[in-house]
C-alpha cells in the first residue's frame, strides 16, 4: 500500500468505525480508483457497502478475499455479505475456509453451526457446537444454539442441560431461565420445574411478568394434581394479574377443590391451552426484546 493509499484507508476506516458508512465507502472507492488491487480498501468498500445494503458489497469482498486468500478476517467479511444476501451454503463454505486458516476461532465455529442448521443439517451443526464446548465449556453463544437445536430436534434432556449451564454462567439471563423452567415442565421433572419457576419469578423484573412464573408454578401443581397448592398459587396469581388472565385457571382449580358451582367451569383442556399460551407469550416478550 502506498503512503497515500494508506492514509486514505486510515481515514476511511475511521469513518467506518464512526458509523459513517457512506463517506467511508466513497473514500475507499476514490482510493481504489488509484489502487484497484488493494485488499484492505476493497474490504472496507465491501463492508461499508454491506452496512448500506448495497448489492455490490459482496463483489468487493470477493475481490479482497481473492487477493488475500490466507486472511481469515477477509473470509469472515465475505461470509457475512453472503449471509446477508441469503446465500447460506456459500456463507458456510466461506466460514469453513476461514476456520481452516484459524482453527482456534470458536466464534466462527458457532456461526458455521448456525449456518449448517439453517441449511437443514442439524447433526453437522451439533458437531461444530460440541467442538466449541470442548474448547470452551462456558461458551454461552454455543450453549444457546445447542438449547435451540436440541429442543427443535426433540432432545429436551440435552437442551435442559445446556440451558442450566447458561443460567449458571449468566445469572440474569431470563431467556435461559425460561428455557430451564419450560423444559423441566415438558420433561415432567416437576420438582425441578417448581424450583425453576420460583427462580424465574425472582430473576424476571419486567413489569407484570411475575404472573407468567405463577402460571408455570400452577401448571406444575396441576400436573402433580396437588389441587390445594394450585389453588393457593392461583389465588396469589389472580391478585397480581391485573389483566385477568388467571380467572379461568382459578375457576378450574376451585372446581377441583370444592366441586362444581353455578359458574361455568372451564375444561382442563381450556386451562392447559391458556397456560401454554401464557408460556409462549412470556417467551415471545423476552425474545422480541432481543435486539
Amino acid at each position, binding site marked *: 500500500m502506498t503512503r497515500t493509499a494508506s492514509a486514505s484507508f486510515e481515514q476511511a476506516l475511521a469513518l467506518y468505525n464512526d458509523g459513517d458508512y457512506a463517506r467511508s465507502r466513497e473514500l475507499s472507492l476514490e482510493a481504489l480508483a488509484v489502487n484497484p488491487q488493494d485488499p484492505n480498501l476493497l474490504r472496507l468498500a465491501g463492508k461499508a457497502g454491506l452496512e448500506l445494503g448495497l448489492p455490490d458489497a459482496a463483489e468487493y469482498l470477493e475481490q479482497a478475499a481473492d487477493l488475500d486468500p490466507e486472511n481469515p478476517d477477509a473470509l469472515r467479511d465475505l461470509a457475512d455479505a453472503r449471509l446477508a444476501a441469503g446465500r447460506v451454503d456459500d456463507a458456510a463454505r466461506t466460514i469453513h475456509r476461514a476456520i481452516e486458516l484459524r482453527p482456534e476461532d470458536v466464534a466462527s465455529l458457532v456461526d458455521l453451526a448456525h449456518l449448517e442448521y439453517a441449511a437443514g443439517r442439524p447433526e453437522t451443526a451439533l458437531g461444530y457446537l460440541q467442538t466449541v464446548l470442548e474448547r470452551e465449556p462456558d461458551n454461552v453463544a454455543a450453549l444457546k444454539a445447542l438449547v435451540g437445536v436440541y429442543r427443535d430436534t426433540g432432545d429436551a434432556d440435552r437442551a435442559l442441560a445446556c440451558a442450566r449451564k447458561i443460567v449458571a454462567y449468566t445469572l440474569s439471563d431470563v431467556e435461559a431461565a425460561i428455557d430451564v423452567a419450560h423444559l423441566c415442565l415438558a420433561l415432567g421433572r416437576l420438582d425441578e420445574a417448581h424450583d425453576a419457576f420460583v427462580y424465574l419469578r425472582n430473576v424476571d423484573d419486567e*413489569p407484570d411478568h411475575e404472573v407468567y412464573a405463577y402460571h408455570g408454578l400452577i401448571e406444575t401443581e396441576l400436573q402433580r394434581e396437588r389441587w390445594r397448592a394450585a389453588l393457593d398459587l392461583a389465588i396469589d396469581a389472580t391478585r397480581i394479574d391485573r389483566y*385477568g388472565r388467571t380467572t379461568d385457571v382459578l375457576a378450574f382449580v376451585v372446581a377441583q377443590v370444592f366441586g362444581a358451582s353455578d359458574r361455568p367451569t372451564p375444561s382442563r383442556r381450556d386451562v392447559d391451552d391458556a397456560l401454554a399460551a401464557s408460556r409462549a407469550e412470556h417467551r415471545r416478550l423476552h425474545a422480541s426484546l432481543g435486539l
Partner: protein
Amino acid sequence: MASETATAAKRSGETVQWTRCPSCEAFVYHKRLKRNLGVCPECNFHFRLPIRERLVQLLDEGSFVDLSQDVQPIDPLGFADSKPYAQRLEEAQRKTGAGEGAIYGPAAIGGRPVVLAAMDFAFIGGSMGSGVGEVITRAAELALERREPLLVISASGGARMQEGCVSLMQLAKTSQAVGRLHEEGLLYISLLTDPTYGGVSASFATLGDLLVSEPGSYIGFAGPKVIEQTIRQKLPDGFQTAGFLLDHGQLDLVEPRETLRVSLRKILELHALAGGGAAGLPEVEGEPPITDAGQLTGRDPWEIVQLARHVERPNTLEYVSLVFDDFRELFGDRLFDQDAAIVGGLAKLGDLVVMVVGHQKGHTTQEMMERNFGMPNPEGYRKGLRLMRYAAKFGLPIVTLVDTPGAYPGLGAEERGQSIAIAQSIMEMSRFRVPIVSIVTGEGGSGGALALAVGDRVLMMENSYYSVISPEGCSTILFKDAAQAPRAAAALRMTAPDLLRLRIMDAIVPEPDGGAHQDPLAAAQNLKTAIVTSLRDLLDKTPDELVGERYERFRLFGTPGLQPTLPPPEEADA
C-alpha cells in the same frame, strides 16, 4: 435481562451473535438483524427497538437535542408495593441510563425540523407517570412555540399506577397540550410502536393528525386477555395488531420499518409546502373545460349512462396517479372501519399540496367487490370528511372525484347512520374555508355523490351523469316499469349539457372520442387542466369569499327567479 443476554459478553469475551426470532423461530444473525433495522429477514417480524436505535433509524444524524435531562419522576404518594416506588425508579434509571421513560427535543427528518418526544418501553414498561406526561407536554409546548410539527413515538403499557391519580391526570395534561396544537393548525404525527396500551393509547398517542404504526405492533385500550375474560369469547387472530386497527379505521398508515423514515419525510415535505398559492400550480396541456352547453355533443342519455358505468372507465386512483404526484393515501374513519369505497390522501399538483378524496370502484369483479362497487358505507363518508377536515386545518385545497352509483343501501349502513354521515359531510363541506373543486368522473348517484360534491366549482366529465336517483330506480317508481330506464335517463336530465344549463355544473371536462376509457391519459390531462383552471380562480379568494360564494352557489338552486329551467325534452331536441 434478555436484551442483555442477546449481546451478553460471554465469559471468554465472545458475544452471542445469533438471536432467535420469536415469530418464526429461525436463528437470525445479529448483525444481519441489525442491518435489517431489527426486522427478521426470514418472516418480517418487527422486533421491538430500543429507543436510541429507533432515533438512529428515524432522525437525521446528530439532529436531536435532548432537552429532557432535567425531567425527573416524582413519587407523589410515597407508594410501596413489594418494594418502594422510589427504589423501582432507581432500578429503572440504572437499567436504562435515563432519568425517565421519555425524552424530547428538537430534531429533523430529511432536513425538515420536528419536535420529537419518544417513550422508552424499557423504563417500567413505558408506563406514563408524571415525568413522562411532563415530557410529552413540554414537547407539545415546544412545537407550539417553534411552530414546528410534533412527532411522538409511543411505547407503553399504560398509566403508571404507582403515581395514582396523578398519573391518571397525565392523560388530561398531555391531551390538552396536543389540543392546543390542533387549534393552532400545527401538524402532530403520532407513531404508535409495539406495544401502546391503556392511558397512553387513550390520550395523546391517538390524537395525532396522522396515526402511524408498524406491522404487527399491538395497540389497544384494554389488554386482549381482559377482553376475553369480560366477554367470554375467543378473540380473532391478529386482534389489536396494527393491521387489525388499520382494517377498523383507526390508523392512517401501517408502514414497514424499512420505509418508515421515507414515509415520514415525505409527509413532512408535503406539509412544508402546505398553504401554497396559485403560483405553485403546474402548466397544463389538456383541453380546457367547456362552459357553453352548445359546444357539447348531444349523445343519448342512456348511452352516457352506459359510458359512465363502463367497466374500463378510469377510476379515482388511476386519475390520481395520472393527475397528481406523491400521492400519500390515508386510511380510516378513526371510528369503526376502513371503507375501501372511498379513498383519499395528500398529493401534489405541481408544487401545490392538496387533499384528494374520491369514490373508488374497480375493473374486475374481485376489485369491484373489494370496493363494494363504489358504494360507501357511513365509514367511507366519515373518512372522507375526516380528510377534508384535515385539509381545512392545514389550509389545503380539496379536490373530490365523484363516481358512485350511490351510498350503500345496507342494514349495517343504516344502523351506523348512513344519513347522518352524508348530511354531516354535505354541511361541513359547505363551510370549509379552503377551495374545493369537485368533479363527477363517472356516476353521480344522488346523496352518496353529493356528500363529496359541495364544492366552489362543480364539474363533470363529458360522459358522466349526476342524478337524484338512478334511471332504473326512477323508472321503477315513476314509470312502473324497470325497462323504461332509458326513458327515465332522458327525463331526469342527468347529463352534462342539461346540468350545465341548470347551473348544477360550472363546466364540463371534455373526454376523448368514445369515452375516457378509450384514452385514459388524455382524459386525465383534461381533468388535470380543469382542476388547475378551477383552482387558479379560487386560490386568490379569501376564506370568507370562498365560504360566502359557495353559500350563494347552492342557495341559488330552486330559488324562484334564479333557478334556470329547461324546456321539455322534445322542444330541446327540436
